[in-house]
């Protein structure tokens, strides 16, 4: 190591790097320490497996190339790509250059960063090529920076409705980040003006600057460059730029099978710190596009959680429709984090629901292989219950209608509002009822219940939504459907589509009854019906705006009937639609057998 390669201006940079890594170490250790048992077990189980290789590949793809952002918005993707990949390459190639110059692997740690200043004009291997590549990379980064600047000033040009607001520490980090590369360009160019050691970019600019008294300001420029780096590194762990490092950790944990738990853990903090504030979640949210509420979306929610300034109205004002989760290039489970914060709004620890007598449910009923659980919502759309009864009878399947006269909620609405202990009580009660029945299959008509039974309950019997059940009946030849010449569209309910990937079954059923037409937002891009039980902040008028946005999309192909497979969607649509064109899938099946 050659200690002559030193100038006091490297001190701010070195200081910044040390502070940054100390901060990162503290944050990473404390997050990992606060993972819960299940999450740790997942890591232990998968850390030595191919999943780790897959994680490395994904980290490269997402953190350096930003493939997901590219897919949603190519310009935004290029911006992130040039800054992330370009900067990394500047460091890597800078190091290569330093090694080539020194002729040994160990060089001063800052030599790669301030190379042009220390280089004394002597020849070293691949000098020309390396100089060219370094200038090219600087151009590349500067082009991304230009886009970032345009994005901040005129976000619409980049296809974004609105970009996010900043906290003071964000602003310091942002300004220092924006200064780093222009300062580097100026510093290298002025050095090139004196030493004639620049590349196509720095030398040309240096020649332009040569008429100025460059000697006077070349060292101050290197100082400024170093200070900008220092400020950025020091502030970075307290700003959104923390995502640069956290996202890598998140990708690894996720590949090892760690998922968000229902309570706040270190993983929640990792997710929160992985948000790059790209703002992609803003434009997919119907609260923004239909109801004109634009301060509650995931990006703002996460920002407020980070800044410890979360307002309960923001935590509660969300449909939990998962459109933003689907769109988020980082894959942050923001809806789960909202539920965690709803839980934090306070919970009572008293016995609940002692009035529910579980023995009443199966008493006096003959055993049967199928258990039908209609669910609360289905009870206010009796047409669905009648149709299901008809379908069971026509298919000659024996069933127990478990909640025919005594309703009990599956617990998901409670869970969504953060009442976890209460939901647990209902879960235990229902589990014992289901176990006592001795049935092998549980059929439910409500997607909310389906989501609960399939993902929250550990039932040892098969759980089917009625779309899946009807599809099975068709496959077995138990139902004879007659195809009509009717035009139908299908609305995917959030809870079974994005929630559980049930896309094909309803489409197969509908296609055997009529002609299914596609709509603009279908499958995982489906819109919310507006009736979501998850949002207690919306007023009726705002909810109606969401419903009509969704109905607009569904009525576009001018269908004879709009088919859905959720009693809540059906009820919400019917309330807001003048003609009687909304049917549940079980109803149209029942009419055609």
């Amino acid at each position, binding site marked *: 190591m050659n200690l002559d390669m030193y100038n006091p201006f490297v001190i701010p940079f070195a200081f910044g790097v040390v502070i940054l890594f100390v901060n990162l170490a503290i944050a990473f250790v404390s997050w990992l320490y606060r993972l819960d048992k299940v999450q740790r077990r997942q890591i232990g189980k998968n850390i030595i497996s191919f999943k780790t290789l897959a994680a490395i590949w994904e980290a490269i793809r997402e953190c350096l190339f930003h493939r997901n952002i590219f897919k949603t918005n190519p310009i935004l993707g290029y911006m992130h790509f040039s800054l992330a990949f370009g900067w990394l390459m500047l460091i890597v190639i800078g190091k290569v250059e330093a090694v080539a110059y020194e002729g040994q692997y160990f060089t001063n740690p800052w030599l790669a960063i301030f190379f042009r200043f220390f280089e004394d004009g002597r020849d070293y291997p691949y000098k020309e090529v390396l100089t060219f590549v370094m200038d090219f990379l600087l151009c590349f980064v500067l082009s991304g920076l230009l886009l970032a600047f345009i994005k901040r000033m005129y976000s619409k040009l980049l296809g974004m409705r609105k970009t996010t607001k900043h906290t003071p520490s964000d602003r310091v980090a942002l300004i220092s980040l924006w200064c780093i590369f222009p300062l580097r360009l100026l510093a290298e160019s002025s050095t090139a003006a004196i030493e004639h050691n620049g590349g196509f970019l720095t030398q040309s600019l240096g020649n332009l600057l040569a008429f100025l008294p460059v000697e006077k300001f070349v060292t101050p420029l290197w100082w400024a460059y170093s200070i900008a780096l220092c400020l950025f590194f020091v502030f970075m762990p307290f700003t959104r730029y923390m995502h640069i490092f956290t996202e890598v950790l998140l990708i690894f944990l996720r590949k090892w099978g760690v998922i968000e738990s229902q309570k706040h853990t270190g993983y929640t903090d990792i997710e929160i710190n992985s948000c790059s504030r790209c703002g992609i979640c803003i434009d997919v949210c119907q609260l923004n596009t239909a109801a004109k509420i634009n301060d509650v979306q995931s990006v703002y929610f996460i920002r407020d959680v980070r800044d410890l300034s979360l307002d309960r109205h923001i935590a509660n004002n969300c449909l939990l429709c998962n459109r933003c989760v689907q769109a988020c290039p980082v894959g942050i489970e923001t809806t789960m984090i909202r539920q965690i914060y709803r839980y*934090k*709004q306070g919970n009572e620890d008293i016995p609940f629901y002692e009035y529910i007598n579980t023995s009443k449910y199966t008493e006096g009923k003959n055993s049967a292989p199928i258990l039908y659980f209609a669910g609360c919502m289905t009870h*206010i759309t009796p047409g669905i219950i009648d149709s299901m009864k008809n379908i069971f009878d026509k298919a000659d399947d024996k069933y127990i209608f478990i909640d025919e006269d*005594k309703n009990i909620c599956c617990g998901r609405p409670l869970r969504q*509002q953060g009442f976890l202990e209460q939901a647990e009580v209902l879960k235990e009660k229902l589990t014992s009822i289901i176990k006592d029945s001795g049935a092998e299959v549980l059929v439910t008509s409500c997607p909310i219940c389906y989501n609960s039974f399939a993902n929250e309950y550990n039932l040892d019997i098969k759980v089917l939504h009625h779309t899946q059940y009807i599809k099975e009946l068709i496959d077995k030849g138990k139902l004879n459907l007659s195809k009509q010449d009717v035009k139908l569209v299908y609305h995917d309910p959030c809870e079974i589509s994005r929630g559980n990937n049930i896309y094909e079954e309803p489409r197969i059923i509908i296609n055997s009854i009529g002609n299914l037409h596609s709509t603009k937002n279908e499958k995982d891009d489906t819109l919310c019906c507006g009736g979501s039980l998850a949002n*207690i902040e919306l007023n009726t008028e705002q909810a109606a705006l969401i419903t009509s946005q969704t109905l607009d999309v569904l009525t576009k192909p001018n269908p004879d009937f709009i088919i859905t497979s959720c009693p*809540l969607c059906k009820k919400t649509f019917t309330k807001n639609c003048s003609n009687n064109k909304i049917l549940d899938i079980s109803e149209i099946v029942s009419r055609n057998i």
Partner: protein
Amino acid sequence: MKFGFSLNTSRTIDLDKLDKKKQESFTDDIPTFKRCFACGGCAATCSAQQHTDFNVLKCNLLFRRGEFETLEKELEKCMLCGKCTLVCPRNVNTRAMIIKMRRTLNTKTNL
């Protein structure tokens, strides 16, 4: 002889002594609370009502009267299933009303 009737124990609710703050902050949050015309639709459809004497209408009344202790016990019975909100002809956000009542009354609320 039993007539099936009995006298209520006498009790007084002094509305002047009520601390109105809780009701006021609540009404700002759920303005539809005031729209209820006591038709009872919510109570009739309620899942919890099929098991117990729970009644959404009564919760509303208890809250207005400031009988918070009784109310707290009542509110625990709701399963938040949402049927009441969907059937209400006056678009009262009954479910939000119950959740907010729970949180207004709960001293442990920390957000």
